[in-house]
């Protein structure tokens, strides 16, 4: 029976454990799916959450507790001092009564008067004693004083009794003398004890006053130190995170992809903020990609007219050749047929190349940063836009300096930039005009420069400020999106370079793209250069 029950319970527990594990695995899977690839960078989800608010509250509570306990300590020392004062008072009274009693006793012994007053004082003393028994006993440490006082009182009373007896006898006087001696001895002792008591009390009072002062000073110093510490901790935390944000922001504004490094020990408001920012940057990047891509497709549209035209030639050649082959097949010699077939293949290849160039460019490819030769990129760009250039009837002079260092960049994106610049330049060139493209080392260290120069009308001053603005265009509706230069600028900034423009009215315009060169190791030096430039 018991075994059966235990077995059931065990099975139930196992099932529950399995459910928990499944849920955990599922959560993990969802998380893995949600963050694209950067899960290695992601901190474990179960990071302690320690907010700034909590930090402030905890600091405040601690400060309050410490202030409170300091207050209590001060009150306690104050009470101690108060009690000491009281005891000093008592011992003062005590000493006073004893000295009074003693002086009356002396009076009595010398003049035979004042015994009553002595007794009165002793009684008062006894009352005082009984009233503050506890305190006195604590200080003196025994009943000694009380018993002595008692004894003294009794001796005095006996003496009074003897005084009442008028009959004098030798025995009586002898007894009286004896009492007197005892009285004197006892009185002396009591005075010593009382004085001792007083001295002790004074000492203890002094001590507690000293303690009070010390506690006071230490408490003040400690409180100040503690509050400073807490403020420092909080301030340090906030300022450090703010600094990190500043770095992060400047990295974002320079269009570089970076990840915000928040503290790995706990999560707080700043982690939330950085999370939101990261989301924002991601979204911004996504939008940027969309804009860039849509603009690229627009450029493809522009190119397509030229390409369609360009395609006509090989297609026409194929059509003519194929028809002639069909028409004259029987009359033709084998050599002629072979020649025609070879032509067909060549022309088909030519058409394929034109289309492939365009498709290569249009394809949405992820950004691949690699060391590339800037000259090659420009040659490819010219190839893509070849038909457009032909159509515009513009002669292009391409000058590439020999032995240029490679740059670190994305081939397709850079092609897009140069294509934009080239198409813009073509637009302002007249038929039969010419363009100049120069690739050389920049005057800036570790940069190569690509200069695209047209000999058009130049850009008027009032427009010059706006040419890099998104959606700003001088072209007629349907011809330009106004995104070309804006997108190009974004791409070049991502590569750690910059685009500048110089223009002269009626003389022409030069766009200069400067890109940082790459050295070994590529990644490291690249980021180094970027950092130096900031």
């Amino acid at each position: 029976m018991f075994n059966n029950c235990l077995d059931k319970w065990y099975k139930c527990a196992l099932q529950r454990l399995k459910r928990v594990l499944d849920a955990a695995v599922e959560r993990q899977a969802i998380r893995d799916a949600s963050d694209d690839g950067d899960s290695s960078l992601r901190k474990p989800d179960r990071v302690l959450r320690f907010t700034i608010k909590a930090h402030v509250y905890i600091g405040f509570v601690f400060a309050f507790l410490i202030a409170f306990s300091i207050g209590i300590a001060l009150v306690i020392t104050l009470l101690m001092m108060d009690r000491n004062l009281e005891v000093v008072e008592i011992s003062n009274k005590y000493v006073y009564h004893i000295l009074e009693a003693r002086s009356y006793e002396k009076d009595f012994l010398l003049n035979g008067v004042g015994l009553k007053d002595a007794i009165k004082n002793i009684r008062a003393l006894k009352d005082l004693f009984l009233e503050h028994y506890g305190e006195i006993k604590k200080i003196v440490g025994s009943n000694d004083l009380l018993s002595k006082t008692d004894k003294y009182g009794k001796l005095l009373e006996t003496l009074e009794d003897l005084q009442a007896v008028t009959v004098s006898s030798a025995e009586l006087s002898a007894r009286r003398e004896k009492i007197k001696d005892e009285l004197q001895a006892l009185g002396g002792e009591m005075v010593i004890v009382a004085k001792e008591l007083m001295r002790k009390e004074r000492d203890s009072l002094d001590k507690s006053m000293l303690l009070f002062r010390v506690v006071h000073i230490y408490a003040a110093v400690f409180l100040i130190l503690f509050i400073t510490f807490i403020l420092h901790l909080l301030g340090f935390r906030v300022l450090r995170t703010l600094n990190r944000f500043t770095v992060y922001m400047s990295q974002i504004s320079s269009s570089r992809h970076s990840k915000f490094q928040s503290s790995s020990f706990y999560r707080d408001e700043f982690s939330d903020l950085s999370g939101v920012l990261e989301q924002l940057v991601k979204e911004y990047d996504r939008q940027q990609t969309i804009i860039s891509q849509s603009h690229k497709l627009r450029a493809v549209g522009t190119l397509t007219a030229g390409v369609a035209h360009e395609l006509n030639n090989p297609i026409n050649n194929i059509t003519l050749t194929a028809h002639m082959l069909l028409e004259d097949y029987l009359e033709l010699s084998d050599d002629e047929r072979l020649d025609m077939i070879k032509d067909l293949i060549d022309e088909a290849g030519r058409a394929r190349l034109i289309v492939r160039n365009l498709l290569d460019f249009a394809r949405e490819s992820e950004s691949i940063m690699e060391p590339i030769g800037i000259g090659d990129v420009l040659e490819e760009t010219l190839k893509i836009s070849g038909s457009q250039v032909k159509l515009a009837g513009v002669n292009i002079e391409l000058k590439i300096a020999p032995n240029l260092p490679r740059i670190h960049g994305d081939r397709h994106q850079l092609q897009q930039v140069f294509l934009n610049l080239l198409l813009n330049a073509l637009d302002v060139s007249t038929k039969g005009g010419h363009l100049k493209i120069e690739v050389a080392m920049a005057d800036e260290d570790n940069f190569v420069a690509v200069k695209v120069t047209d000999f058009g009308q130049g850009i008027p001053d009032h427009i010059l400020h706006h040419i890099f603005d998104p959606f700003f265009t001088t072209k007629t509706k349907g011809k330009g999106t106004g995104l070309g230069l804006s997108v190009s600028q974004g791409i070049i900034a991502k590569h750690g370079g910059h685009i500048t423009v110089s223009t002269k009215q009626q003389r022409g315009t030069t766009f200069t793209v400067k890109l940082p060169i790459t050295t070994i190791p590529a990644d490291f030096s690249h980021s180094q250069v970027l950092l130096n430039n900031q």
Partner: protein
Amino acid sequence: MLMMTSSKFEVLLLDDEPIVGKRLRPAILKLGCGVEVFESPAKAIKRINEKEFDVVVTDIRMDEIDGIEVLEYVTKKSSRTKVIMITGYAMMELARQAMEKGAFDFIAKPFKPEDLRVVIVKAAEALGVKLTLSHEPQ
């Protein structure tokens, strides 16, 4: 074959694509007329200066001198010469311009050899010459 002129019916073909000339030459020869093929507009114009052709077939888009210029030159030189323009697919505007400037007709790339022959025959008719396709190569 009815010959109105003393000499042979002469056609000049100008296209900067070599294959066009290479393939069209035998196609036009089958009409029984003389054909001269040029790839360079400058050379073609030089030849036009030397000789009066009945029909000039020219591509519109060429690098040095474009077809419109050739058209203008030919009409200035000899008003009776019929000019047939070869245009690209996306150049209807240019084609219309060519027609306004006195081109006889235009033909859009890509075209079949037969298409061009039909136009040449039409042009010959306009000149009062009847051309028929002979199946014997010359």
